[in-house]
């Protein structure tokens, strides 16, 4: 966020200059938190938390695809690993849900390293196909091994309890995932505004020049991939108790593609884009349920058109910069050096 606010030399971002941006974010969060009070309808709220889940996944994938520019086509695999680890440990071994999160993350990260180490070292283009394959492998394993319930999956996943709070209703999960979204967005922004985030962007823009800055590109690509793995896994771990039953069809290429579309359409390299994309991808089809068969056909067209017209998505990073400037010009004390919103 700081890059939006350094305007003149020597200026320090004060609380006042960050106010418009922070105010907007706060307003959105408060609004989101109030939704369950506006409607008690469990159906809408379940759509709500599914959207939040997808947003979490999109924020995670945004680190890989948006920040580091790596095409990951098998992100659902980490989601699956998180969900299945939680399911197996909690159902078969009676672990509490919360305690299953870390093992899932661990396995995901190990997988990320195995897949990423040979691939990222070489040609990142291959990552696309390798990650695709990885997604398929995970789904095949889940589908074919009885330890994971085979095609029918695992059911009877116990309830999530956080301390003394029992999380069971759609409303409760709406809040849980809202908190998760906030945490992920927070972490994502922190990473973005540090040397890690800058390194990722450099790698995305120009690997050779990035190396000339002393950036060890292969390490950072690995970090990005691992970061995505962590977020995918944690989301999966909470998905399991939300649905109480999980099965292989939820973790296929279509799901990976959906998450990718959220990032690509919403805006690559921007958490706000990921949020927007996640919301679009979940809420829009719900609004047009009768076209479910043709859903992906429409998505395909939308994807093509958006890639052709706005290759970096609707709100990629930097898209808000013009807005912030104009807001500050309106409410601040300095005339704006105007740059058109790109």
């Amino acid at each position: 966020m700081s890059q939006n606010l350094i305007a003149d030399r020597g200026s320090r971002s004060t609380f006042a200059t960050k106010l418009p941006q922070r105010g907007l974010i706060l307003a959105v969060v408060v609004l989101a938190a109030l939704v369950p009070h506006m409607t008690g309808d469990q159906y809408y709220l379940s759509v709500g938390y599914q959207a939040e889940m997808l947003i979490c996944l999109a924020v995670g994938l945004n680190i890989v695809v948006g920040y580091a520019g790596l095409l990951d086509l098998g992100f659902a695999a980490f989601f699956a690993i998180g969900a299945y680890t939680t399911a197996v440990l909690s159902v078969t071994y009676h672990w509490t849900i919360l305690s299953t999160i870390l093992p899932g993350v661990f396995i995901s990260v190990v997988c990320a390293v195995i897949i990423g180490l040979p691939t990222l070292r070489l040609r990142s283009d291959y990552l696309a196909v390798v990650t695709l394959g990885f997604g398929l492998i995970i789904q095949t394993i889940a589908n074919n091994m009885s330890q994971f319930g085979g095609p029918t999956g695992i059911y009877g996943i116990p309830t999530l309890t956080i301390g003394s709070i029992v999380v069971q209703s759609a409303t409760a999960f709406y809040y849980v995932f809202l908190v998760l979204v906030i945490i992920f967005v927070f972490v994502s922004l922190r990473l973005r505004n540090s040397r890690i985030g800058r390194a990722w962007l450099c790698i995305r823009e120009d690997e050779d020049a990035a190396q000339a800055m002393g950036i060890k590109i292969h390490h950072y690509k690995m970090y990005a991939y691992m970061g995505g793995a962590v977020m995918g896994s944690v989301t999966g771990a909470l998905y399991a108790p939300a649905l109480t039953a999980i099965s292989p069809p939820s973790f296929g290429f279509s799901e990976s593609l959906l998450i990718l579309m959220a990032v690509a359409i919403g805006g690559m390299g921007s958490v706000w884009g990921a949020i927007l994309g996640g919301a679009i991808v979940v809420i829009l089809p719900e609004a047009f349920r009768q076209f479910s068969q043709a859903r992906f056909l429409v998505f395909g067209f939308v994807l093509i058109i958006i890639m052709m017209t706005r290759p970096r998505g609707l709100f990629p990073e930097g898209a808000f910069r013009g807005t912030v400037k104009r807001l500050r010009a309106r409410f601040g004390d300095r005339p704006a050096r105007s740059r058109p919103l790109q």
Partner: protein
Amino acid sequence: MELFLNEIGNGLFLGAFFGLIAVGYSMVYGILRLINFAHGDFFMVAAFVSYAILGAVAVGHAHMVWFTVIWVGLLVMFLTGLLAVIANRLIYHPMRRAALLSLMIAALGLSQVLENGVLNIPAWGSAYLTYPVTSPPSGFTLGTTHFTWFQLIIVIISGLLSLGAYLLVSRTLLGKAMRAVSEDRIAAALMGINVDLVIAVVFFIGGALAGAAAVMTGVYYGQINYLMGWTVGLEAFTAAVLGGIGNIGGAVLGGVVLGIAQSVGTGLFGAEWAIVVTFVALVLLLWLRPTGILGERVARRM
């Protein structure tokens, strides 16, 4: 042992299809650095189009069947090539200055459009459709394994087509232009090469080869399905990487190797795990020999 030979044989034929599709992938990647995810779906669309045409032409007398299949095959090759060229003209060409990532995502979008387009055509849908022409069972025996003449024909035709593509790239002026464009597009343009035309030709050839593979697949397996392109596309790209991307000989070799690996894998572990074999093979390869068996031929820009 004979089961093993059988699998190798099957693998070889599988490999023939992979190889033809892999060549298309490889050529497009070599010239544009683009993984055209829709390529496998060109193959699928070709299969369906040939299905429709053959069904409509109502193959009659036995001795006319093969004649019909051949001219339909050539027609489909042409149409698929055309499809590829149109896809490039409408989507990839306008996006030529965009980031590669965006191009690949657009390719994914096209892939979805083609797959779901076919899915949503009422006459077709998600079912496995029976191909109007099936391969005759007559054949010959080598040792204890039985091969059909058709299998031999597939291998020969695939071989000839791949050889044709290879000769085109290595011996003709057009091929030289292709190599120039893939090394340095700007320099090639400055030399007077019509870059857009060259790219269009590459797409056409890739599409045509996929079309040929589609007809042969239809006849050989007797069934087509809207998802057939996606899986095959993945496998073909893996084959291209295995053999060395950008390299036609590599694509063919990779196809054969992968075909055999999959066939053996299916025999050992079951069909479900065939795709797992593919990707484990790919990851292992990337660990051990990243440039592929025959080495890659894509220029490094520095």
